[in-house]
């Protein structure tokens, strides 16, 4: 049992090498957070959740690169499973753009959307590089994983971690989880599993993810931005405004020149009677 103290950073270490794709995390999350869920999606695989959104705060991704035809040596490449979740980024894109202050960092260092403050503008959805947040059709506000904020306040670990039967999802203080993860990585490398790698355990991705992962392939294979692509929305503020300002200056100068008074002798001598009638607002 993890002791939970406000002021300390908590998160998840999701070890995909032991995920069996049972989706107990998804079920436990929906049970605890009273999420009715979406209609299931039926595609070409075991994934009927589709994606993280306002109802799915955990989503077991199935990365299926196994050939459908009869197996022969060398056919099977990988069948990867990963229970995806909000990363609770240290430098969070959603928190950065939120205009209402609904997105806050809690006393557990998690990123939380206050449902009574959010007005559903969806700027955070445009910002989140992981596609975690969705506008909920029941509450009409943005929703995502809360790191079970209410459970943490009551001294309990999040529902998904509690339900995970293989300890693929581990909850705890981030520094302790990082130590565990690096131990686990060493073990796997020692067993000759060279493709195992950590994602978000250091500060290379968004300053560090409080919910980080051990992956069995490159981040791109799991549709996660790698360190080079993990960029914040605010990177575009300066250059965007600068280009707008330059355009504004050119437009004003051009406008002043184009609209300047010209000698149009035909028109100017026309004595114009002062018109008293008001003009409409059209």
């Amino acid at each position, binding site marked *: 049992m993890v002791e939970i103290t406000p002021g300390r950073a908590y998160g998840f270490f999701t070890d995909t090498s032991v995920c069996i794709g049972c989706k107990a995390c998804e079920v436990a999350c929906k049970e605890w957070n009273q999420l009715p869920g979406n209609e299931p999606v039926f595609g070409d695989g075991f994934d009927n959740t589709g994606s993280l959104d306002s109802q799915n705060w955990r989503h077991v991704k199935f990365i299926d690169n196994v050939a459908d035809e009869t197996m022969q040596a060398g056919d099977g490449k990988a069948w990867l499973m990963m229970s995806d979740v909000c990363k609770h980024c240290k430098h969070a894109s959603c928190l950065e753009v939120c205009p209402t202050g609904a997105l806050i960092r809690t006393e557990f260092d998690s990123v939380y959307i206050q449902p009574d403050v959010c*007005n559903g503008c969806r700027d955070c959805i445009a910002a989140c590089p992981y596609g975690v947040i969705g506008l909920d059709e029941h509450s009409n506000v943005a929703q995502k994983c809360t790191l079970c904020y209410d459970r943490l306040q009551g001294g309990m670990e999040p529902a998904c971690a509690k339900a995970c039967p293989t300890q693929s999802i581990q909850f705890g203080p981030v520094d302790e989880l990082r130590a565990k993860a690096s131990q686990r990585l060493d073990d796997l490398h020692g067993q000759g599993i060279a493709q195992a790698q950590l994602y978000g355990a250091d500060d290379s991705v968004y300053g560090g993810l409080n919910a980080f992962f051990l992956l069995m392939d490159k981040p791109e294979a799991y549709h996660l931005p790698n360190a080079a692509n993990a960029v914040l929305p605010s990177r575009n503020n300066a250059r965007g405004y600068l280009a707008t300002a330059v355009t504004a200056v050119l437009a004003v100068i051009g406008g002043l020149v184009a609209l300047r008074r010209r000698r149009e002798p035909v028109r100017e001598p026309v004595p114009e009677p002062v018109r008293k009638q008001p003009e409409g607002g059209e």
Partner: protein
Amino acid sequence: MVLAEAEHFVRAPNWTWYILFYFFLAGLSGGSYVLATLLRLRGDSAAEAVARLGYYVAFPTMLVCPILLTLDLGQPLRFWHMLVNTTPGQLAPIFKYWSPMSVGAWALVAFGLFVTVSFLDALRRDRRGIEGAGLLAKLWSIAGAVVGLFIAGYTGVLLAVSNQPVWSDTWALGGLFLASGLSGSAALLGWLARHRRAAQPAAGAFVRAERVFLLLELVLIVAFVLTLVPAGTLGRAFGFPWILLWALALLCVLPWLRSRERTRSAVAADGTVAAPARVVVAPGLILTTLALISVLAIRAAVIFSAQ
């Protein structure tokens, strides 16, 4: 196989029609205010007559903006949360200079104030038959025009400050929206000026202004294209069916680039006919409508192609 939906790194915010028409009207309102102010600074009576038309256009177009934005919210009654942080225990105005949506909300409040005052002032001057504009009115207009430039352009920056494909791959959108908003406003005011007698002598100037803004717009479209190439999202922004919108946007403004100078003889009020001279003829309703369609098409292509 992974479901296509799960392949998105980023989810689309579903900013659609309300936002499109907000961007459109913000461009026209801001643009009209700016052009009105440039003409007001020119000082002659014809220019002031058109300037007032500009303030008349800026007011109703501005009024619709917050309504559209409010309707777009998931919780429309919480529109004021854009300005006031209602986090328990932290009730205070909220302003985040690094979030264009936060800045834009405040800018819209400020612009609303400038536009409303300028509109009422123009109405008052027209009713009383006051021809000119005083120093105070000019200073007020200049300050309002700075906010107007912001309102017409920041919407592009708002899109860029995200992690959406296309939008966040370029720095050109703010300038592009500003230039196209100004060009739409120039077309609209030029057409309106034809219908206000005192403003008619200034109508032709808008055709020249229109060309300046269209040139800027074209340069920024090129910049937009060039910035999307390294990002690999050019096909997304200009692929089918969006290429049709871009083509529409360009086709609609082509007639504006033709020379509109005509030889005209003017008949003065006392019946004397002046010698023929070259004057620029402001376009009619059709060309004006085309210019506005172009403004709308550019924004639609940008907004919808990324999502």
